[in-house]
Every structure is written in structure tokens, then in C-alpha cells.
């Protein structure tokens, strides 16, 4: 992920950006990721080109070190140990051998010792200012490094190094017209004594004559309708670039008042702008994890796109054709992201409407999507007005066009149901393709591609084939069996099994209490099983041949996911503030693999990603991963945020969180400071394993990067973790051995995976309960007609 700041190198050949605990180097010509500079142990907070040598870059990190890199070859040259968490770095040509660091609320000048050693401790610190904004863009060096300008809230300060004097200028908090004057960013003109400041209400002020207490002056320009996020002067000083939430890059001609040029529709809101030192290229970074490379003629010449981290509403899906991960991308789009190559492939415009970048607007969003088994059809649902009562939604069906190698819209169904669509799935048979949708209006509908006799057109459009309902109950989920001979639709507590050929209700299955949450047919050798989970902590496995409950267990499952290439089913269980993962085969009530405490958040989205080549792993516990990898998406609330803050995954999330904290105003500023890692044990163990034990770095790295499936909704944070490192499995194996009692239980045919350590009395009690459960269940099934 490309969160963070970046600089364009001297000739505009490279873009550097911070990404978690590393700095990534991209080529501006090919937009390829060249390499990353790795070595920091905590989040990289700032980078700055070495003014003395433009092939070197300084990076500062929350781990308390400043590192100097040769970024072309990716070599670490030196490490300076400061000892405090660092939040930003500023350098200037005038101050050789000095870097200015943002420590706490202080701006500190640090003399870098000239020593030949690789690791040096820098001890010469001198404070420049003790009240500095936590926002790194609120500080900038002035002309020839003679002064440094920094703003905090409503005050602009200019510190002159030679005179050692600070001039301060204050603005009123608001004026009669309701302007919000707080500073949001600063840029200094390279040759003139002019400071440009951006403000919360979108104004840009150009300050001059700021060595006078009274006779200072500023001019105000106003185009942005929301806060100015970033400002940057071009190296010649002829233009000023500004960007904000509007995702329009504005170029103000310096000195001519309000003559300006616009580059609109750049994607997400602009977070940073920077110009290459020859002024030929500009770069903008966006909130949707993207870097845009722009020529000085104001044309976009390259886009470096990471995985879009905005709100994920759809399930995680794998495009069967490209094996790419598919989920919400840009607003109104689906993104196709190749996990193997860790590259964003393309965005598919689903909504096909202009998206307006402004907070608080109700706009169409893709909420559901599904692929058929061959990847020839894609069904999407877009919705607007979830919050208000007037819900609008469309069901769209897209067919794959071989010629354009893309999906083209085949059918738009405006009123598929009278209420919101809850879920949908394609039949998995080879011959006919069928889509089943279930909605809150209590109906499920089957859609088929039919030949329209009236029009006799070449194209075949989709139309409704069957409408079904069950006692007016609200459906909760639907699933096709592997051979598409059966359709299971759950209505509240009842699972109904239908034959898609005749639309006959074959049987109903019921195991109260609790509303059915997930439904999942077994695959391959286990295709006679149907697995269901309920909201009341019950995981049931039904035998469809006997129409009886094969086994059940009491476990709270938040997500059930079956592997399309094997019999395995993965269940994520969320209990007492952490999530456990169980992998089992439906034919036996014993888990193949258990992994306690995967993460601390509830998991709602997961996907098995087929491997290109099956692994031949003899290790029994990790065999389930031989054919595919399991990816899942976690959602953690902001409250838990800080506790995970310093796990390396947090670092990968990087800037994203920092920006949120910016929004969260001073009370949360302290959260910027790293705290002791206390996230999940396995993750830390994974990351603290010696390098020689780990698989090749290239494998790990790409997995790390690809693992960033992040939703970016207001207060929700999500991170994605990836589970299949061999090392990790070894760890968990050890863990499993540790709980012997559990093994014992299994030997007795018990299926309890939730309570690993129980006293004998408890075990007995549990057994008794389970037995009664079974008998009661059997009776229920028998009584069915």
C-alpha cells in the first residue's frame, strides 16, 4: 500500500513513498515497484531527500531512528539512533549535517555525527520550537533554509535561524462569515519570502513581509470548498499546487492573483502533492491508496495504484478467470487485484455515475457481487439510501467479453425485489447458469438467461424464472450445492432445500434455536453435507441423504468459508474479544486445524485463493493449505486500534490511521505514539522469527503487501491478515499440542473446539448436554413428514 508521503527524485525518475515500516521506490516511467528500503522496525513517518546528495534519502521512523539510504540500489548507508519516536523529518540545503525532527510536540534540530560506523547515536539535540502541530505538512523550510515556518491551530510562526527569533501571527478562530481559519498546511516559496498556508475552510493565504510585527500582510484566495490538504510550490516558484478532498489538483499562477488551472477527477481526495526537483513532474497521493504522476503540462502520465482501502461492502471474491481478488474499489467500482503479483489490475465501473467527492452525500455503492463458476457472469447489486427510507437498488448482470477482455453490462434489473437484496449466488452447474437472489421482502428469485421470443435479438437477457417463498419468513442466506442439483435457502430458523430443475421444495431442515447465518455445501467427497451456522452459537452439519443432523457443535461462528478445491471448510469463531480459526471437513466433527487467537476483531469476510501450483506439504496440520490460501478481512473498532497499533500489520496500514487521527483532534493525538505491542501472539511471533527460518523474503513481502484489504469507513478500521506462512503453522501446531485435554476430548468423539481447558466436571456436564442435544435433534428429524 502506498500510504504516505513521497518525493520525486531529482530527474523525476523515481517516486519514493512510505509504506508501513519500509519505503517503497517506484519508477515514474513504468510505474513499476522497483524495491523497498527495509530496516525500520516501526512505522516510517517521514522521508526527505538528502540535500547534499540527491541519490540518498533520509527516513525517520517511530522506532526512534533516522536512516540514510541509497535508494537507487536500495542500500542502507547509515542508521542514526535518536531514541525517541519520530513523527516527521525536514531537511534544508543550508543546514548541512542537520536534520530537523518532530519529536512529541517539539521540533528538534539534530546534528548527525560524522562517523564511519554503520550505527551512530545522535546526541546533539536542540529544540527549535516546543509547540508544533502534529500534522507534518504544517511545517516547512523557507527560502534557502533561512527560516522555518510552522503553524499550529490558528497561529503561524516563522523562526529565523540567523536572528534566532520567532515571529508569530494569529488568525481569529472564526469570522462573521463563518470562516474556519485553522491552518492545515504550509509551503514556502523557493526564491521569494512568501509563505502559502492552507486553511480548514479551503482558503489559501499568501503571507509576506512577515518580519514586521504589524506591517505583515497576506492575500487570500479561495477555491477549495473544504480543507486544503496539501500545498507545494514548483521548484522555480512560478506555480503553487494545492489539493483537497475535491480530488482536483489546482495550479495557481504565482503573483497573478487568481489565475488557476485545474486537473479534476483524480480519484480519492488528494493527501500530498510534491514536485520533482526539475519541476517536470508532479505527484499526488490519494486517499484511495494511489499515486498519480502528472507532467508539468498538467496531464496525468502515470498511476500507481495500491489496493483500494475504502469501505468493503461486498464479499471477498476470486475472479475465476484471472484469479484476482475482487472487492469494492473506487466508489462505485469493483477492483480486480492480483494477489500473486501484488498489483492492482483494473477497476470495473459498476455504478456508471459520476462520484462526487464530498462528505455526507448519499451515492450509489456496490453492496453485493457474485461470480459464476467459470467467470463468465458477474452479478452486482448497487444501493443508495440505506440510511433514509427511500432505498434504491439495481441488480446488474455482466458478461465477460473475450474481445475486450472485460465485463460488459448485459442486463439491468431495476426492481428485482421490493426490498433490499440480502444475498445472491450463482448455480455452479456447467450447462445452465442461474442466479438466485434473496431479499428482505421474504422472497427468493431465480434468474435465468432466457431467449426472448418477442425481440429475437442476438443478446440474451436475464429474466426471472421462479419466485419462491416459505411461510413469509425472511430469508437469510442461500447456497447451491457443488453440482447445482440442490439449492438451499435458509428462512430464519429453517433451511429449505429446493430442486432448481423442478422448483420443488424437497425438504426442510431445522435445528432451533437461532436464525441461520451461514450456509455452505460440502465439496467433493463431502458433497452430501450441508453446514449451517446460527446466531445462537450452533454449527450444524446435515446429511442430505438422510436429511438428518450428522453432528452439531456449540460454537459462535461469524464466518463460514468453504474451499472450492478441497473438502475443507474454514470457520471463524469470535469469542471473548478474539477470533479463533477452525478448519474441518464436514464428514468428521473433528477440526483438521485449529488456530487460537488469530486476531482480536470479528471476521466477516474471508476467501480461499487457489494456488497456482499445489504445494506438496507432508505436514498434516498444514495440508489444508496445499491447494489454496485463506485470506480474511478483519474489522477492528477504533478503540482496539491502539492496542494493535504497533504490530507490523499496523505498520503496513501506516498513514491511513494517522490521517484518521488527524481528524480525531487533539484528544487522540497521543495515540500517535506507539505503545507496547500487544496484538495477537502469532503475528508478533511470526514477525520476531529469525530471518533464516522464514520463507524467502520475496514471498513474504508480496504476501504482506497483498494482505492490505482495508476498509476506510469513518470509525471502522479493518486490516487483513494472511494466514498461511509455514512458520505460523508450526507455531500453532505447538499450541495445539499444548492443550492435551482437548485432544482427549476429540478422542472421545467430542466436537468441542471452543473450550480448550475444562475441568473434568465441566467436561462431563458438557458431554451430558451434548448427548441430550443429539437425541432431541434426532427426534425432531424423525417427526418430520
Amino acid at each position, binding site marked *: 500500500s502506498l500510504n504516505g508521503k513521497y518525493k520525486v527524485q531529482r530527474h523525476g525518475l523515481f517516486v519514493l513513498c512510505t509504506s508501513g515500516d519500509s519505503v517503497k521506490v517506484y519508477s515514474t516511467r513504468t510505474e513499476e515497484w522497483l524495491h523497498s528500503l527495509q530496516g525500520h522496525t516501526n512505522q516510517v513517518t517521514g522521508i526527505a531527500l538528502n540535500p547534499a546528495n540527491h541519490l540518498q534519502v533520509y527516513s525517520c521512523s517511530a522506532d526512534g531512528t533516522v536512516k540514510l539510504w541509497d535508494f537507487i540500489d536500495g542500500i542502507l548507508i547509515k542508521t542514526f539512533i535518536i531514541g525517541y519516536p519520530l513523527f516527521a523529518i525536514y531537511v534544508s540545503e543550508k543546514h548541512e549535517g542537520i536534520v530537523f525532527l518532530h519529536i512529541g510536540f517539539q521540533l528538534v534540530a539534530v546534528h548527525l555525527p560524522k562517523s564511519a560506523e554503520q550505527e551512530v547515536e545522535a546526541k546533539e539535540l536542540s529544540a527549535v520550537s516546543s509547540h508544533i502541530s502534529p500534522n507534518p505538512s504544517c511545517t516547512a523550510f523557507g*527560502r534557502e533554509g533561512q527560516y522555518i515556518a510552522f503553524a499550529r491551530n490558528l497561529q503561524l510562526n516563522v523562526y529565523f535561524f540567523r536572528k534566532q527569533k520567532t515571529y508569530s501571527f494569529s488568525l481569529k478562530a472564526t469570522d462573521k462569515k463563518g470562516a474556519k481559519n485553522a491552518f492545515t498546511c504550509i509551503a514556502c516559496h523557493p*526564491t*521569494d*519570502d*512568501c509563505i502559502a498556508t492552507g486553511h480548514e475552510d479551503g482558503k489559501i493565504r499568501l503571507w*509576506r*513581509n*512577515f*518580519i*514586521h510585527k*504589524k*506591517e*505583515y*500582510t*497576506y*492575500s*487570500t484566495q479561495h477555491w477549495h*470548498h473544504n480543507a486544503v490538504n496539501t500545498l507545494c510550490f514548483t521548484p522555480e516558484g512560478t506555480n503553487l499546487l494545492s489539493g483537497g478532498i475535491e480530488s482536483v489538483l489546482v495550479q495557481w499562477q504565482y*503573483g*497573478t*492573483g*487568481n*489565475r488557476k488551472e485545474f486537473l479534476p477527477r483524480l480519484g480519492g481526495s488528494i493527501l500530498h502533492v510534491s514536485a520533482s526537483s526539475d519541476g517536470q513532474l508532479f505527484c499526488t497521493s490519494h486517499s484511495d491508496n494511489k499515486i498519480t504522476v502528472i507532467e508539468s503540462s498538467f496531464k496525468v502520465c502515470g498511476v500507481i495504484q495500491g489496493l483500494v482501502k475504502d469501505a468493503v461492502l461486498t464479499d471477498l471474491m476470486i475472479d475465476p478467470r484471472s484469479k484476482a481478488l475482487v472487492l469494492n474499489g473506487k466508489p462505485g467500482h469493483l477492483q480486480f487485484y492480483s494477489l500473486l503479483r501484488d498489483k492492482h489490475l483494473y477497476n470495473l465501473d459498476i455504478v456508471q455515475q459520476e462520484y462526487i467527492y464530498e462528505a455526507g452525500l448519499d451515492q450509489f455503492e456496490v453492496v453485493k457481487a457474485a461470480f459464476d463458476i467459470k467467470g463468465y457472469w458477474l452479478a452486482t447489486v448497487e444501493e443508495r439510501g440505506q440510511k433514509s427510507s427511500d432505498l434504491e437498488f439495481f441488480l446488474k448482470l455482466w458478461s465477460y467479453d473475450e474481445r475486450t477482455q472485460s465485463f460488459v453490462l448485459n442486463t439491468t434489473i431495476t426492481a428485482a425485489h421490493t426490498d433490499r437484496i440480502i444475498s445472491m449466488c450463482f448455480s455452479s452447474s456447467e450447462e445452465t447458469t442461474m442466479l438466485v437472489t434473496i431479499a428482505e421482502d421474504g422472497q427468493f428469485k431465480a434468474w435465468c438467461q432466457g431467449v426472448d421470443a418477442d425481440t429475437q435479438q442476438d443478446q440474451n437477457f436475464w429474466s426471472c424464472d421462479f419466485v419462491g417463498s416459505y411461510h413469509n419468513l425472511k430469508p437469510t442466506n442461500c447456497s447451491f450445492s457443488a453440482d447445482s442439483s440442490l439449492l438451499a435457502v435458509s428462512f430464519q430458523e429453517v433451511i429449505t432445500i429446493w430442486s432448481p430443475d423442478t422448483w420443488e421444495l424437497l425438504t426442510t431442515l431445522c435445528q432451533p434455536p437461532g436464525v441461520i447465518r451461514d450456509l455452505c455445501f460440502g465439496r467433493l467427497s463431502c458433497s452430501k453435507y450441508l453446514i449451517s451456522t446460527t446466531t445462537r452459537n450452533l454449527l450444524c452439519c446435515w446429511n442430505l441423504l438422510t436429511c438428518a443432523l450428522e453432528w452439531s457443535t456449540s460454537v459462535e461462528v461469524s464466518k463460514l468459508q468453504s474451499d472450492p478445491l478441497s473438502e475443507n471448510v474454514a470457520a471463524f469463531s469470535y469469542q471473548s474479544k478474539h477470533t479463533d480459526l477452525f478448519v474441518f471437513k464436514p464428514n468428521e466433527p473433528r477440526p483438521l486445524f485449529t488456530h487460537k487467537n488469530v486476531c482480536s476483531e470479528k471476521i466477516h469476510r474471508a476467501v480461499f485463493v487457489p494456488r497456482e501450483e499445489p504445494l506438496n506439504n507432508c505436514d498434516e496440520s498444514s495440508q489444508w493449505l496445499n491447494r489454496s490460501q485463506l485470506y480474511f478481512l478483519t474489522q477492528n473498532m477504533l478503540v482496539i486500534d491502539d492496542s494493535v497499533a504497533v504490530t507490523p500489520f499496523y505498520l503496513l496500514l501506516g498513514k491511513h490511521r494517522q490521517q484518521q487521527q488527524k481528524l480525531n483532534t487533539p484528544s487522540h493525538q497521543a495515540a500517535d505514539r506507539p505503545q507496547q505491542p500487544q496484538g495477537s501472539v502469532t503475528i508478533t511471533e511470526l514477525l520476531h522469527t529469525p530471518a533464516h527460518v522464514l520463507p524467502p523474503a520475496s514471498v513474504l513481502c508480496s504476501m504482506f503487501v497483498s494482505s492490505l484489504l482495508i476498509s476506510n469507513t469513518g470509525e471502522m478500521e479493518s486490516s487483513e491478515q494472511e494466514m498461511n506462512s509455514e512458520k505460523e503453522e508450526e507455531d500453532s501446531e505447538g499450541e495445539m499440542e499444548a492443550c492435551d485435554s482437548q485432544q482427549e476430548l476429540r478422542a472421545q468423539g467430542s466436537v468441542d473446539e471452543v473450550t480448550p481447558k475444562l475441568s473434568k466436571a465441566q467436561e462431563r456436564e458438557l458431554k451430558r448436554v451434548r448427548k441430550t442435544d443429539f437425541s432431541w435433534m434426532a427426534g425432531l428429524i424423525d417427526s418430520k413428514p
Partner: protein
Amino acid sequence: MGEFKVHRVRFFDYMPSGIRALAFNRDIERIAVARMDGSVEVFHCSDRFFQEKIIPGREQCGIEGLSWVGERLFSAGLNGGITEYDLTNQKVKYTIDAYGGPIWTIAGNQQGTHLAVGCEDGTVKLFEVNEDKIQFERNLDRQKSRIISLSWHPSGSKIAAGMMDMIQIFNVETGHSVHRLLADRGVGTSRSKECVVWSVVYLSDGTIISGDSVGMVKLWDDQTGTLIKSHNVTKCDVLALSVSQNEDSLVAGTSEGTVVQFQFISMVLGKDDKEWVRTRTFKNHTHDIRAVAEITTAVVSGGMDAQLVVRPLLDKVEVRSAASALRKIHFPHRRLVSCARKSGLMLFQYPGHLELWRLGESEGKGSSLFVKRNPEKLLHLKVKGEDHIRCSAVSPCGEWIVYSTASKLRENTLHGLKHFLFLFFQISKLPMVLSSANQLCFSSDSSHLFSASAQSSVHIASLSQSGCKFVGTLKPKSGSHQAIHLLAASEDGKWLASANSDHEVHIYNLQTRKAHCTVPVYSSAVTAMGIHPTTNCLFMMYADQQMCEYSIEQKQYTDWSRTVQRKGLHRFWMERDTPCLNVMFNPQNPSHVILHDTYMLCIIDQSLPLPDDKTQFYNQLTLKSLPEEQRKSHSHAFKVCKTFKDILCVELMSDQSLVVVERPLEDVASQLPAPIKQKKFAT
């Protein structure tokens, strides 16, 4: 504080006239304002912008330019004449025709020797300024199009003239054109429209700055005749430019109602290479700004919306005080309404006519009363001739109306001011000696008319059913000959006080018809005064919000007045930005003095202690919440009522009812033409 029945009068449809030109005289700190109706006003910049002098205009006399030459004020207009004003007597001194068609602009050089006017026929005419007149000297090279704007180089050797599509630079010596600077037309559809150079400014370093109808402020070099820089200030016109004395700040007024400031700033701190940089934008007007003046400590602007806005430049102000606050002057600092206190009549003074109204009657009690009889308009009196009314009065008994105009002047004749007296539509001829009046006043028993005249003298005429008879003249013992702007007669008919523009207040004994005494001269102008009916003390309000009470009989300030001076007035009182316009006394309670300005009505109870800066000034609400016995300890002398807004006049009638004449600014704004349409965000 007492209760009054209040007549809230809103039928005075007074419309201030738009501002056309401004001229600032740094030496005497006066700013002259020319309005659309041809009137010229003089404001005192260091005396809180008090409107010292008003010279009424005439029909069909559009002033286009104003210029000070020394302490003399000249104007030129579309009638083709150049007018000099007699500021002492507040009237037109003479008008001479320039014989070049309508005049668009007038500019005097800094040396005070010459005036240049730009005419419709394309000539720049130079006039020599003599001792008591101006004399045509010669024409500069005639151009093909009209001359819109002129500016002298500070040395007086060159003139820049703004025209259609270009700027010409003339050598004054030879009269020939030195350079022709072509101003670009707008792009697109406005390509076919001529670019009007509305305003030029010639700086001492040879930079010429122009503002044009394309919306550009352009900087030119007069040596090479090339454009140095251009700033796009607006989509509409830049109508006015003004530069500060030391040429480091320039303001441009646009037809969008904004004033844009440019500053001459060194781009690199501490170095001398300076550039003109656009800095601040002020938006205080709704309509076109026709004139701006940079007076170093403030920017004064005026335009079609008829308000004069003084926007302080706080970086140049030494001490921030009430005197340096943003000031908007909407209404004249003179009374346009006079009341017949005994008969309930009101006389409204419009520029070209008078209206006499009878107040309505009401019944019932409470905060709003039922109107029993609507007010009615008794008289609509149009002025004969083209002159506008200078002053008017109605006698307290309501039987007499008097007004005075400034009549058309023939050259060298000072005669020509006329008085008309009405006694129920019987026009009385006035004695010849009463030919000129700057202010008019009746005695309280309506038996005498006092008319302020030239040389600070006051003529007295006695009124009777048979007519009007000149009785005598009151002359001040010594002092200035400035025109009198205020007169106040005592209730018992014994005393008369007069205040003139030199801040002198003379008191005359009407029985002996001799000057009685002179109030010590204060640095600020008297804005209102009145003689107390029982104590015969003269109560005076000054432009800087100070107040004085002077005992006429003892010829000294009263004890109360000395206490006020010693203790000082409350901060809130001093910070008000409009002058008090009337002083009244409540016959029911002799210790009450009633004052008003544009925004409030105030009753001063002289028997109560004065507030100091720590006391709560607006304390009515607090007092209401306190129990009766505590109120006394918390109350102070000033009772301010802010119920009424945009007050033109308050008068206490003899039946103890107050008449409050309001002119809401919204009503004024609604009668203005529509402003230039501007795109506003999110509309």
C-alpha cells in the same frame, strides 16, 4: 427612566445619493465627497469622520471629479463646467465653462499651480490656479477619444491620461504625447467592446498604474512604454484607484463592490527590489465602487450604494481605538427632520422638496398601540428652480415653514439665496437682508426666526400675522467666519447659541441682542446642542462622543460637566461610531437629558452616579432582574435604548410623546438598482 409614548415614523422615504468622487487632502485631513445629486460634503478624517460641511447640489449637475488644490476644492462635471467651492460659507463660489464638452475627470498637480481636466472632445485642458480664480492656460495634444482619467506625475512635468483602449503620456511642457500605451480588450464577446481606462495613477518612480473595464490593474513603465505586470482583479470593471502618500499601497475599487489592496513589498526580506503584490480584499459594498481613497491609516470607499465606508488599515494605525474602527456612514450628520412640538407636525427635507406630515393618533395601552388616526401628508412643496434645499425648519406652533436653497449663481454675485416663509400657504416675502442662510431656527414661542448667515452672524426676524420683519443681526465678538451649522434657542427666549465649523460656540443674549459669551473651544466639532429649559445650561455633544454642560448665566462649565470630564466616560459610550444628533430635555424631570444617534436612544440622568469602565454599561436587563431596593445601587446615569435602528431623528413633543423617525437600511437597499450579478458558491 420614565415611560414615553413613541411615534415610530417610517414614512420618511429619504434616499441618500450615490457617491461619485472622493478627494483627500492630507494637510488639513479632510476628505471631500461628491454625490450623484451634485452635492459635495466635507468630512474631517481625524475627528471621527464628522460631516463638517455640506454644499447642496442642483438638478442636472453631475459631478465627475473632485480635486483639492491647496485648501481649495474644485469639481468638474458632465455639464462642462469647473466649479470652485466657498468652503467657509459652504456654497459654490463660481463655475466656469471649459468649452470642451462634458468633463470626465479633473486633477490638480501637487505643486498647486495647475488643474487639468479631461474632456469629451479628447482634449486635456490645463488651467492655471490664481489667487481667487482659475485661468485657462492651454490644451495638450488633442486625442481622438474622450479622456476618462488623468493623473499628474508628482513632479508636475508629465500627465498620464486614460482613454478608450489606451493610455497617453503627455509632456506638460510641450503638450505633446510621449507614449501611447495600448490596453488590451477583454477576451471572447467583450472583444468587440472598447476597453475603458477608468482610472490611472502616476507614481514618482515612473510607474503608471491603470484600472480598466476589463477588470485588470496594469502596471506600466513610462520610460519604455511597456507593460510590466497585470493583475486580473475582477470579471467586471476596475472603476477607481488610489495610492497612498508614500506610494507603498494602492487600492482599487471594482464594480463588484470589492476593494483590492496592492502593496509595494520587497519579495526577499531585507532587500530593496520591491514589487507590487496583491494582498487584501475588502468587501463592504453591495454595488459599484465609484471612488476610493487610500488615506494611509484607512481606505475610504464610496459608490452606488450611497454609503461611505472607512476601512482602517490596522497595520498603519498606531493605537487601536474607537477612532480607528470600521465605519460606515449612511446618513448625513445633520437633521433632515424638524418637528412642530406643540402641534404634532413634522417637516421632512428632501433634496428637491419638502413634506409636511401630521402625526397619527393612537389609543390604548401596552407595548404597541392601536392607531386611531393615520398620519397624513399635509403638504408637498416643490422647490422653485434647480437648487436643492440646504436647510429647513417648521415653527413650534406649526404655523410657519421656512427653507433655504442655494440658488444658481451668476459670476461674481454672492447674492441669490432665497428664503421662503409660509403661513398656511401664504408666502411671505422676506427682507433682502435675510438672503443667505446656513441654518434656520425658530424661537420657542414662534415669534422670531433666527437665520445663520455669512460671517458667522445670525439675523433675527420677527414674525407676525402681517408678515416678517427684519429685527437685527447678532455678530460674534471675534473669531472665524466659518458657517454656522447649529443653532439653539432657549425656552424662555432669552438666549441663543450658535456653533460653527471651527468648533466655536457663541452665546447671544436675545434681549440685548449682544454676544454674551463664548464656550471654550474644544478640539472636536459640536454635533448637537440644546439649552436646558429650567437651568439655562447649554448641553453640547461632540463628534468624539464627549459631552459638556455649560452654564450660560455663570459663564462656566457646570459641576456635573466637570465631574464627567474628570471621571471620563464609559468605554462603550466612547466606542459608538455615529455622532449624537439631537439634545432634548424632559420638562417632567429636569435632570434627564435625552440624546440619540443612528443606532440608539439614550437618557442621561444627571442625578445618578456616572459609570466607570468596570460597571456594566447596558444594565437595563440586569436591573429588571434585581429587587427594587438593590436597583438603586446598581443603576447609573446612562440608560440606553436600542429598540430603534437607523434613526434619523428623535424629538420630544410637548405632550410628552417621543417621535422616532427611522429609515431602515433594508428599505434604502431595496430602492437601489440591482447590483452586478455574481456567481456565489453553492447557489
